[in-house]
């Protein structure tokens, strides 16, 4: 019985962490598919989103869900702004420079967010359902935090809506075609600038959503964001870079692995996670869903 208890105690938070990494992973996968670059600034955007969410909660005294919704919209436009004014100009030179430009953006965003919001951990409002913060499962007598469960549900909803947006809507179709071959897409009237901007917008929004959902579990700080951003990229690579569904699976694996390693031998928790990433990157360059990470020639 207590093995089941252990599984439940680790499974839910691990899954919740995995979902958030998955959300980040989707953003990175979309970006890579579209413009073959990697976003190092994802962590800083996650931190910024979480901090904005916190200040909205305090300012307007509203619950977690409402503030998260507002944050998602704000960060969407931040993402669009970054792409249009900064990344597109750097991209014109070469996609290699974008990697360093996003690293620079990550430094700028995280230092500005620390300067404005302060660099310590805040307490985020938790989700309370019929009066108690926990869902008590009596036969195993384990208390699971409602905000974990809500976070998992919201993440899945977000993933499904992204899937529908890309496959069902016309703009989604345009985005996927631009991702496959931007020249061809441009010739048949798809404005690649718009699709790239929206890709960044979605990526930033998903990251901020993840940041806010993690608030109740780990508290809100810029530092949390950075750790999550790298893991998001790691998950995306695990799942096969550029493939959205692979990124979700990769993110879930990383989330579970990190929580389990935390249990097995906590001192080397982050080393194991990154080592797993390196093993996958080198031994399985195509990732689970087969995307090229190896340079020919």
């Amino acid at each position: 019985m207590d093995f089941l208890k252990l599984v439940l105690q680790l499974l839910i938070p691990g899954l919740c962490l995995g979902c958030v990494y998955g959300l980040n992973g989707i953003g990175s996968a979309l970006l890579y598919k579209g413009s073959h670059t990697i976003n190092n600034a994802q962590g800083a955007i996650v931190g910024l989103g979480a901090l904005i969410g916190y200040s909205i909660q305090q300012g307007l005294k509203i619950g977690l869900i409402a503030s998260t919704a507002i944050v998602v919209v704000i960060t969407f436009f931040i993402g669009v702004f970054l792409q249009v004014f900064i990344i597109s100009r750097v991209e014109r030179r070469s996609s290699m420079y974008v990697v360093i430009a996003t690293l620079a953006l990550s430094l700028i965003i995280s230092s500005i967010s620390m300067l404005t919001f302060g660099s310590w951990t805040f307490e985020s409002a938790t989700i309370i359902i019929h009066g108690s913060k926990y869902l008590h499962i009596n036969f195993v007598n384990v208390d699971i935090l409602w905000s974990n469960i809500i976070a998992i549900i919201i993440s899945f909803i977000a993933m499904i809506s992204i899937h529908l947006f890309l496959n069902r809507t016309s703009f989604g179709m345009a985005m996927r075609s631009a991702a496959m071959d931007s020249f061809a897409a441009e010739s048949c009237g798809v404005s690649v600038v718009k699709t790239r901007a929206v890709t960044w917008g979605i990526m930033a929004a998903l990251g901020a959503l993840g940041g806010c959902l993690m608030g109740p579990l780990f508290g809100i700080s810029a530092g949390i964001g950075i750790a999550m951003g790298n893991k998001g990229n790691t998950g995306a690579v695990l799942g096969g870079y550029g493939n959205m569904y692979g990124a979700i699976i990769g993110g879930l694996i990383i989330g579970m692995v990190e929580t389990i390693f935390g249990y097995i031998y906590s001192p080397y928790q982050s080393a194991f996670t990154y080592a797993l990433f390196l093993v996958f990157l080198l031994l399985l360059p195509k990732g689970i869903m087969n995307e090229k990470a190896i340079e020919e020639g």
Partner: protein
Amino acid sequence: MKKIFKNKKIRNIIIMVVTIALLMVTPVIFTSFRSGNYYLNVINYVFVYAIAATGLNIMTGYSGQINLGGAAYFSVGAYGTVILCNLGIPTIFAVLLAMLIVAFFGFLTAVPAAKLKYHFLALATMAVGEIVNNILIVSPGGITNDTHGMFVKALDLFGLKLSKDSQLYYFLLISMVLCLLFTFAFIKSHTGRACIAARDSVDAAGAFGVDVKKYKIIATVVSCIMIGFAGFLFAYLNRYISPDTFAAGKSTMFMSMTMLGGSGTLFGPLLGTILITIIMEVLRGLPGAGLYLQLSYGLVLLAVMMFMPFGVSGLISNIKTKRIIKKKRMEEMEKNNVGS
């Protein structure tokens, strides 16, 4: 007097002699008044970071491979020498052995890295940096003294104890000049040219018999050794090393020094180090200096990426080459008009 200055050769020698004299005398000038001592210490750090940035430049500037985990080799160099010295091995052998360890570690990371695409190499090097840092924090058998950090004894070179900044100054100056000369020799050598060729066009280099993977690995290993050597010097200058000084912040610092100065140029990294150190010292007094410093790294890197990808010295040499080309084109114009 005018004739002497007109003759280019003599002018060069005079500048050289004056500068060498000034370099040798600087520690004496600085230690004469007390606050100069602090700035002498800052200059020593400039030498150490310049060596590390030059090392990184060999990999990023000359061989076109990105490395966001430079701090890993820096820390292996630092901890390697300090641990070996504590075991009683004389400094020289400890340094050589440590450089071998760094070279092996560099080779271990270079072989898989050579076949990775640029972006994934960025992620992989970042991961290596994180792993090494985590191992430093919780080292097997506590050899790195974990987060307590390690005190470093004064550097004794052939029995000569170099503890004060003015003594270290000469040792660091000579090491930096040697590293710059080595880089100059490396670039002008046949291997160096092959590395640069592999950077500019993988297919063309392949077509002319350049084994691209081999030269990428050579460049990475050479770069790791130089960064590791800078790590050793840092340990004996800072006299205290702990895992948090080798965190990701160091890799971004090296990256912005190389990029600002001009990656792919010989003096770029040194110029970048001087400029970044000046920014560091100016910000020193401000509250939240660390954050403003990180902000300035970000702004520097972004500015370089958006406006001058070849950094400051790249800018200078661009202006120079453009002038040469224009002059040549003008000559050719006259020749053609006269000719045809």
